[in-house]
């Protein structure tokens, strides 16, 4: 046990010209606040973790592109003071692919939701993972279509009530991380919003990773899904994440199951594979003798 295993790095306020402490307001379009998310929505917690990771990685806001799809998660991009793109339902990864290919100098982050990414956009996810373009995909999984009023999603747990499963959901759901990994994503991780610092670090690892990184955020829809299923108040829902999660500090420990799917949290897979754009460019130059 040494200090380096401590994942948390908050910087002190600048005294000697060093970097400023993370102030989320520096990264927000303040005119738009308060944001439109419901009280207790986990997406806000996740967005904070993301911006914190961006801050600690010293990513210039001008060089940051956030591409989102449709749904509650899709609206998050608008709140960030960066180059932001709120695209069509399910397609942010495809937009991001074009953007990244056109502008490899930009840091391209996709914010998507479980419906956006796994249902209507499922095809784009698997091919983004296969292609391994240097994009970080943050998928907020709250098990429900919140924006449209709470319909069943590809990750809704069994027996949960939604507006389209009035008798309880009987469809099996996706393990999004296993899907991404199977499709070839070179970085896959999952974290809960409760473990904000671990989530921030996971996102940071994903952002640093050269290639396609997929981070699933276990987020809570408290107002719609929580109420419909009697999952308790916002704090109770956030706290309930703790019951089955053992945060990993060393990056290797096997974690405990979370939710019905027995899912693990932490970095689930990390591997080296040529990044798409650089490999494409290098190959073309080689063939053309440039």
């Amino acid at each position: 046990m040494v200090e380096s295993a401590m994942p948390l790095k908050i910087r002190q306020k600048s005294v000697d010209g060093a970097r400023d402490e993370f102030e989320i307001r520096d990264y927000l379009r303040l005119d738009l606040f308060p944001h439109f998310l419901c009280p207790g929505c986990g997406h806000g917690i996740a967005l904070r973790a993301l911006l914190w990771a961006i801050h600690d990685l010293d990513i210039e806001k001008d060089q940051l592109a956030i591409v989102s799809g449709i749904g509650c998660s899709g609206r998050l991009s608008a709140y960030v003071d960066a180059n932001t793109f709120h695209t069509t339902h399910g397609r942010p990864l495809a937009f991001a692919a074009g953007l990244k290919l056109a502008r490899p100098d930009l840091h391209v982050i996709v914010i998507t939701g479980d419906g956006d990414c796994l249902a209507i956009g499922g095809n784009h996810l698997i091919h983004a993972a296969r292609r391994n373009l240097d994009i970080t995909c943050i998928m907020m999984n709250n098990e429900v279509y919140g924006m449209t009023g709470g319909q069943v999603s590809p990750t809704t747990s069994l027996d949960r009530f939604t507006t389209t499963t009035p008798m309880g959901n009987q469809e099996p759901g996706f393990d999004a991380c296993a899907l991404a990994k199977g499709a070839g994503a070179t970085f896959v991780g999952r974290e809960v919003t409760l473990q904000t610092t671990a989530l921030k670090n996971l996102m940071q690892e994903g952002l640093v990773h050269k290639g396609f990184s997929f981070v699933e955020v276990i987020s809570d829809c408290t107002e719609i899904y929580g109420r419909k299923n009697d999952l308790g108040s916002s704090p109770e829902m956030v706290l309930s994440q703790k019951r089955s999660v053992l945060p990993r500090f060393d990056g290797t420990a096997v974690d405990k199951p979370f939710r019905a799917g027995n899912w693990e949290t932490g970095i689930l897979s990390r591997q080296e594979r040529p990044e798409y754009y650089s490999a494409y460019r290098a190959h073309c130059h080689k063939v053309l003798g440039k």
Partner: protein
Amino acid sequence: MSPVPGNSPQLQSLQGNQACALGAIAAGCRLFAGYPITPSSEIAERMSKELPRVDGVFVQMEDEIASMAACLGGSLGGVKSMTATSGPGFSLKQENIGYGIQAEIPCVVINVMRGGPSTGMPTRPAQGDVMQARWGTHGDHPIIVLTPSSVQEIYQQTIQAFNFSETYRIPVIVLYDEAIGHLVDTVELPDPKDIETTDRKWATGPAEDYLPYAPDKDGIPPMPRPGDGYRTHTTGLTHLETGFPTQVPDDVTRVTSRLLDKIENHRDEIEQYELLSCGDADILIVAFGITARASERAVNMARDKGIKAGLLRPVTLWPFPEKALQELAGHAKHVLVPEMNAGQLILEIERLCAGSVPVSGINRFDGETIKPNEVLAKIEELNNG
């Protein structure tokens, strides 16, 4: 394809789809995202070969929707981008074409028309996407659709499409049929230095004062380039000049009207058409694409027989050259609209003529082109009529 020996190096034997790819490169296209579909695949194939040579990027996406999205994404990044498809793929792209219109993203979409509906006749020519090109995406929107009728013109109109899209910040559709797309013809490519290309109007000035959707006097807002410090928001939601969504009726009316007007107010610069023997024409033919070529011959044959026939060939199918039609139709005794569909363009012609002159059509949707003789026969019938 290699140059034809013995001729000037610019004279080439070129397939329509290949000409499209070369035109795109000449126009400055540096990103192509596509998905294979007959009969447009040669465009993607040629782009995959040409783009690496000019440090561009070719990517074959996972589906038609992704191709359209990646094309828009590339353009948002500041790179001229294109995609190409045919009917079924065009249908799939429509939502994102709408996004491109709403968010005012320049890009070029090639649609090589084949028989439909649905899978229809993948290898047979048709002109059934006239209305899909105009109204394929939902909501009230402007559009620019160009319809080349020769291999040479595919090259030129692809360049023109890029220029229009960059000037007016709108997806521009190049619509031609399989017969032209697969035709190999002798074309004369211009010297690269003679090709006029338009570049986007980029945002300049201080970022604090910048409103991404505040138009200049011409109705078109300059576009922000990521990394230039503007950090704007792009959305498919109806948005204010700030780029952020609105649902306030007055605001929605203002911004959507501006969107519509930016094309409507520039009709004069956008509308293109070609006239053949129209000066004294009793019988005015309106046709585009391969059908215009058949009509051209039919008009020549009719003139040989002393029949006063003329041809109006819209190059911009949308916006349709309304004034030109109305003026010519005012002098004509009959308007004839041959098209390889069950009657689409004729609806617009009838609307524009508004009962002032009888309008009839020649329609084929059997996968065959309309032949000059068929047009001539109809001209003779109307003339005798």
